[in-house]
């Protein structure tokens, strides 16, 4: 015999709680009501992996698009859909269009790296990354109407660009 949720009286109770603090009571709730009562945390938003799976499925469903293969490792978009993992670093170039959309969804709209750059990376790479970071800082400073800081960042950008 399965219990019915005490709160909504409809769904099956899957969360069972015996409280002793602050009052002695037993609760039998469905997941949804348990969350409303504040006793459990339910994942509301989709996990990034779920977004990933959905998008890949949608894209790979387009027939020929699924056959697109990386010239370096031979992995196809369809195989990536099945495994959820890429075959080699060149896939980022080979599947750039699909991956840019995926990455945008999974990373709050971001499509460019602004963090650490390997110390051994070439000058061009370092300069590129530095400029990206500064341009973003400039934009933020303007949004916050911090014009003094914005002016300083603008000067830094100009200095780096002329190198």
């Amino acid at each position, binding site marked *: 015999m399965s219990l019915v949720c005490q709160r909504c009286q409809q769904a099956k109770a899957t969360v069972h709680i015996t409280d002793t603090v602050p009052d002695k009571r037993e609760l039998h709730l469905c997941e949804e009501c348990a969350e409303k009562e*504040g006793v459990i945390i339910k*994942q509301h938003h989709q996990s990034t992996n779920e977004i990933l799976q959905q998008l890949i499925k949608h894209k790979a469903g387009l027939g020929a698009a699924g056959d697109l293969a990386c010239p370096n490792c031979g992995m196809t978009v369809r195989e990536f859909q099945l495994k959820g*993992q890429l075959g*080699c670093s060149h896939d*980022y170039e080979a599947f750039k269009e699909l991956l840019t959309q995926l990455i945008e969804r999974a990373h709050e*709209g971001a499509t460019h*790296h*602004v*963090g650490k750059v390997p110390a051994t990376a070439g000058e061009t790479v370092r300069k*590129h990354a530095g400029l990206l970071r500064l341009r973003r800082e400039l934009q933020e400073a303007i949004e916050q109407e911090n014009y003094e800081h914005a002016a300083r960042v603008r000067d830094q950008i100009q200095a780096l660009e002329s190198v």
Partner: protein
Amino acid sequence: MTIDELTPTTGEWLRGVGSMSDVVISSRIRLARNLADRPFLATASATERTEIYRCLADAITSTSAGSDALLVDIEQTDTLDREVLVERHLVSRQHANGEGSRGVTISPDETRALMINEEDHLRIQALRSGLELEALWEEVSGVDDTLAKRLAFAFDPQFGYLTACPTNVGTGIRVSVMLHLPALKLTKEIERVARAARDMHLAVRGMHGEGTDALGDLYQLSNQTTLGKTEEEIIGMFSETIVPKIVEYERTARDSLAQHSPYQLDDKIWRAYGILVNARRIGSEETQALLSPIRMAIHMERFTSMSVAALNELLLHTQPAHLQKLHGKTLEGEQRDIVRAEYLRSRLAPSP
């Protein structure tokens, strides 16, 4: 150093010290890196996989990244020892149960564990008790720099560090903070935590528990976004914003329980203690659940007959693999529950 020597000690994440350690059990930072010009693991052949393993193990053990570390070849390690590493949070379950050539290097104090051939070629991980993210970042970034002098990591000017799964691309950083939130659970305010985390695009999940329930009231908070923010910005969200906020919620909830329902609170604490000290057979999950109110009580100074360090030792040593290692042989489920109860009584019962 061997796994056998590690087992009787408590891992770094259970030392019970560090900033805000009344609520923050431990913090961890992990960086995902892959070797440039080597296939990712999804397409690497067995031979290529072994080469990657050797190349990384060699680079780590011959530099300050891990010259004093214990290198564990997981493929050659028996199941029980693999489980010990999982219970100590040194490797992921996926890594322990995976296939093919793979391993981990563990620093003598267990603060640093570098997983080779997990999902990516390398996962640089550092772990400390309490909220210590800035120190952890300095450590993992330093290891990254040391290794980058010998090895070329896959990096793209637009996408940053390239990873096997695009959800880790960019910084490759995963920051995780483990929180003990018994009072918020009791006062039914745990949803506040979920809401705060959601607003910042962070994930909260219960530790160890089945489904949505958090075993032992332990919750793990971690970032989902790894691209478009600097590592310092991602870390700052935790150490400056969300963690202090949740810690404040939990402390307030504890105060409120002490003020408004002291008898019920003490009843819960002492009943938990009563079961732990008298049970004749007890499962690992029940043990963890019962240790939770006692941990809170120690921090609230309502329970003085045990230290946090002692409690943490019980928590770790009653987990299945540790229990069996310390007992000296493998045990079936039912037998394990009896041995666990005996162990708890021997450690907790007042001497006659």
